[in-house]
C-alpha cells in the first residue's frame, strides 16, 4: 500500500518535471537569440555562469566538508592557525587571472556592439508614455505601436491569449540580413527598448539620441518589453519585431506608405457625428483611457477628469489646443503627431459628447487638418 503511494507520488513528480521541461512556461535561461551578437552574448553568459558554478563547488565544498567533519559534536578540536600570507596571495591572484580571462571575450563583444557604422536601414524609435513610435528614416513612414491586448483580459474578465501583454496593433517590420541601426529617443520620461532575441536593450532618453544595431539572421516574430520604469503603464508597452525577407519588406513598405496617404485623404470628406463618436471611442480607449480612465473620471490628484470638466465642456478652441499641443509640465502629451487629423477630430468630438458631456457638436477632421498644416511649418522654422 505504502509502496503504491510512493510510486504514485514519484511518477507524478516525474511527469510534472517532464512536462515542465517541455513547456515554455518553465523557461529558465537566456535566449541565444537570432543575431550573431546575441549568440556571443549567450556564450559569454554561459561561460561566466559555469565559472561561478566551478568556484561555488570548490568554496562551498570546503565549507560543507568543514561543517561536517570539524564539528564539536564529532569531537573536533580547534586548531590554532589564523594567518598565512601565502594562501592570501594565492586566493587573491587566482581570481584576478580568472577575471582577466573573462574580460577578454567580453571586451571583444562589447566593441562589436558599439560599432554602428555602415547601417543599411535607419529606424528611429521614440518612447512615449506608454507606446512606441517607429520612424523609418528616409522612407516617409512612421507609426505608433500600441498594446493590443484587450482590457478585459487584463482585468480577468476574459481568457488570456497566448501572447498576453506581448502583442501590439502594429509590428515593427524589419528585413533580415540587413544591418539596421536603431536611433532611440523619448518624448517624455526615460524608456528602454528591449528585444531579448536581438540582445538589444538601450535607453530612450528625452532630448538625447542613443544608437544600437542588429542584423537579424532568421525571419520570425520577436517580442520584448519596455525595461525602464516609465510610470503607471510601464508594464503595458511591449515591443514586437517582425523580421521578414528583404523582398517582403519592400512590399510591406510600399503598402504601408499607400495606406498612410489614403488616411490623409479621408480627413477631407464629411463625417457625421455618429461616425466620429464611434471612431472617437476607439481612439479614446487606445490613447486617453490609460490616464483619464474609460469612464472619463480620471484619477484625483494625478490625472484630471474629463467628465464635466471645464475644458471638455467649454471653449472648443481651448479643448483642441490642449489635445494637439499638450500641457507643459504635466503628463498631458501633445497628440498632434501621434494621431491623424481624423482620429484627433473623432476623439475630441467623443470627449465633448460622452459621459453626459452632451454638447451635441462635432469637430470635423478637415478643421483639424487645417490646424495641423501651418503650425508644422512654424515648427520647422
Amino acid at each position: 500500500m505504502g509502496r503504491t503511494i510512493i510510486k504514485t507520488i514519484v511518477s507524478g513528480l516525474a511527469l510534472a518535471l517532464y512536462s515542465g521541461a517541455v513547456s515554455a512556461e518553465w523557461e529558465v535561461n537566456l535566449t541565444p537569440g537570432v543575431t550573431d551578437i546575441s549568440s556571443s552574448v549567450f556564450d559569454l553568459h554561459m561561460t561566466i555562469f559555469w565559472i561561478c558554478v566551478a568556484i561555488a563547488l570548490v568554496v562551498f565544498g570546503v565549507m560543507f566538508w568543514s561543517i561536517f567533519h570539524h564539528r564539536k559534536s564529532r569531537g573536533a578540536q580547534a586548531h590554532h592557525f589564523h594567518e598565512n600570507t601565502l594562501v592570501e596571495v594565492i586566493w587573491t591572484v587566482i581570481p584576478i587571472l580568472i577575471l582577466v580571462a573573462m574580460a577578454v571575450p567580453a571586451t571583444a563583444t562589447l566593441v562589436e556592439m558599439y560599432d554602428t557604422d555602415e547601417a543599411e536601414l535607419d529606424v528611429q524609435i521614440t518612447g512615449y508614455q506608454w507606446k512606441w513610435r517607429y520612424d523609418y528614416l528616409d522612407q516617409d513612414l512612421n507609426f505608433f505601436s500600441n498594446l493590443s491586448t484587450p482590457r478585459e483580459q487584463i482585468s480577468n474578465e476574459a481568457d488570456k491569449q497566448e501572447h498576453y501583454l506581448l502583442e501590439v496593433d502594429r509590428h515593427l517590420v524589419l528585413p533580415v540580413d540587413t544591418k539596421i541601426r536603431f536611433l532611440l529617443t523619448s518624448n517624455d520620461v526615460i524608456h528602454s527598448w528591449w528585444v531579448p532575441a536581438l540582445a538589444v536593450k538601450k535607453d530612450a532618453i528625452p532630448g538625447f539620441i542613443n544608437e544600437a544595431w542588429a542584423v537579424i539572421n532568421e525571419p520570425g516574430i520577436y517580442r520584448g518589453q519596455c525595461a525602464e520604469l516609465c510610470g503607471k503603464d510601464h508594464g503595458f508597452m511591449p515591443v514586437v519585431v517582425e523580421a521578414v525577407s528583404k523582398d517582403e519588406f519592400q512590399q510591406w513598405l510600399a503598402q504601408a506608405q499607400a495606406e498612410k496617404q489614403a488616411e490623409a485623404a479621408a480627413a477631407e470628406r464629411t463625417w457625421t457625428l455618429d461616425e466620429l463618436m464611434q471612431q472617437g471611442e476607439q481612439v479614446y480607449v487606445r490613447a486617453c483611457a490609460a490616464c483619464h480612465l474609460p469612464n472619463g473620471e480620471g484619477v484625483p490628484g494625478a490625472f484630471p477628469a474629463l467628465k464635466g470638466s471645464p475644458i471638455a465642456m467649454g471653449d472648443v478652441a481651448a479643448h483642441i489646443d490642449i489635445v494637439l499641443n499638450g500641457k507643459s509640465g504635466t503628463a498631458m502629451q501633445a497628440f498632434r503627431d501621434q494621431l491623424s487629423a481624423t482620429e484627433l477630430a473623432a476623439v475630441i468630438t467623443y470627449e465633448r459628447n460622452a459621459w453626459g458631456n452632451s454638447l451635441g457638436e462635432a469637430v470635423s477632421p478637415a478643421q483639424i487638418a487645417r490646424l495641423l498644416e501651418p503650425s508644422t511649418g512654424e515648427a520647422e522654422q
Partner: protein
Amino acid sequence: MSTLDTTLEQDTHAHHGPAKGLGRWLFTTNHKDIGSMYLWFSLLMFFIGGCMALMIRAELFQPGLQLVEPGFFNQMTTMHGLIMVFGAVMPAFVGLANWMVPMMIGAPDMALPRMNNWSFWILPFAFAMLISTLFMDGGAPNFGWTFYAPLSTTYAPPSVTYFIFAIHMMGISSIMGAINIIATILNLRAPGMTMMKLPLFCWTWLITAFLLIAVMPVLAGVVTMMLMDIHFGTSFFDAGGGGDPVLFQHVFWFFGHPEVYIMILPAFGIISQIIPTFARKRLFGYASMVYATASIAILSFLVWAHHMFTVGIPLAGELFFMFATMLIAVPTGVKVFNWVATMFRGSMTFETPMLFALAFVVLFTIGGFSGLMLAIAPVDFQYHDTYFVVAHFHYVLVPGAVFSIMAGAYYWLPKWTGHMLDERMGKLHFWLSFIGVNITFFPMHFIGLAGMPRRIPDYALQFADFNMVATVGAFIFGLSQLVFLWNVIACVRGGRKAEARAWEGAEGLEWEVPSPAPYHTFSEPPKLPESLR
C-alpha cells in the same frame, strides 16, 4: 579581572540608572537605550516594508490585475525599497553599532551622546512624513526607489516634495550617526587597543561611516537639484533647458553604489564576529579582512556606472566600469575564503546565530556570483532591469544584510537582555526563513533570464509559474518573521539566565561585562582580556 569586577560593582550601584517613564526614551543619551530604539524602529520598518513586499507579491501571484492598480503598485515598489533601505537595514546597523561599539572597545558611551539622541529622533519624523505621502492626493512617490528624473521631477506626483524633505532628514540622521561612530572608535578605545586589535565589527563600521559621510551629501545634492527643477525653474535634468536626465543617474549612483556597501560592510563585520565564536577558532586572516574591507570601500567609488550600462555611455567608459566592477570580486572573494578558512579545522557548533551566519556566507556568495555576471557589460544588456537583477540584489540584501542583522541580534540578545534564546524557536525561525527566502528569490533568476522586466504589475503568461512559486515563498518568509518577533519578545521577558560570556567561544570586551549589560559600562577604562593583548 578583579579590577573589572569592582568597576562593574560601582556601576550597578551608581546614582544614575535609567530615568522613569517616557522621558527616559525621549531625552536619553545612553548608547544602550538609543541602540534599542534604533533596533525596535528598524524592526517596525521591516514589518511595514515587508507588508508592502507581500502586497507586491500578492498582485504578482497570477497574471492579470487582481488586487491593486498599476499606479498603486508603483507606489508599493517605491516605498518598499525606500523603507527597507533607509528605514530597516541602515538603522538596524546603527542600532547594533550603538549597542556594541562602545562595549567592544571599552568605552563608557558614544563620543557624542546628545547628537546620538538627535540622530535617532529625526528618523521617526522622517518616516512618518514619507509614509504620510500614501494618503496624499496623487499618492505616494511612484517612480521607484532610484527615482530617475524626469519621472521623479516633471512627471512626479505632488508628494515628491515631501519625499525630498524626508530624504534630507534621513541623510542628516545618517551623517550624524556616522560622525559619532568615527569619533567613538578613533578616540575612546581602551588603553592598549590598537587599530589592528579592533574587533572587525568596529573596523567595518568605521569604514562604513566614512562612506556615509562621503556619499550622503551627494544624495542630498541630487534631491536638492530635483527640488530646484520642480519648484524653482532650473533644468538640471531637463534637456529642454540644457540639462541632462542621465546626469541624475550619475549623481544618484555615485551615492547609490557606496550605499550598497554601506548596507553590506557592517554585515561582514557581524559575520566576522560570529563565525570565530562558534568555530572556537580565531578569525583567519584578520589583517587581510581589514584591507579587503578598505579596498571594497575605495572601489565602491569607481563603479557607479555599472548600474547604467544601457544609458549609452561611450565605449571607453563602459569598459572602465566593467573592469572596475569585476575587480570588486577579488576583495569580496578574499573575505569569503577567510571565513571558510576560519571554519576549517575549527570545533563548530550550530546555534541560531551561527546558522544565520553560515546561511549568510552561502547565500551572499550566490548574490556575489550573480553580481559578477552582471558586471559583464555586454551580457548586462540582457540582464539589466529584469528580475535577474531583482534576484541579485535581494540575495545580497535579504539573506545578506538582513540575515546578518538577525544573526547579530540572536548573537547579542543574551548580552542585551540577560536571557538565553529558546534555541528550538530560533532554529524554527532560521529554517523557515532560509527555505522561504530561497523559494522567493531563486526563481527570480529564471524569470529574469527568460525576459521579465522588473517593476511591472502584470506579466506575460510564460512567467506565471515561477511568479506563483515566488509569491508562496514570500508569504512563508514574511510570516516566519513573526517567529523572530516572538523570539525577541520572549528573550526580553525571560528565559535561561545568560552568563557574562554567553557563548562558549566568544572573545572580546563585550563578553567581560555581566549579562544583561549594566546601564553604564566601562566608566573606568578596562584592562584588555588575554585574547586581545
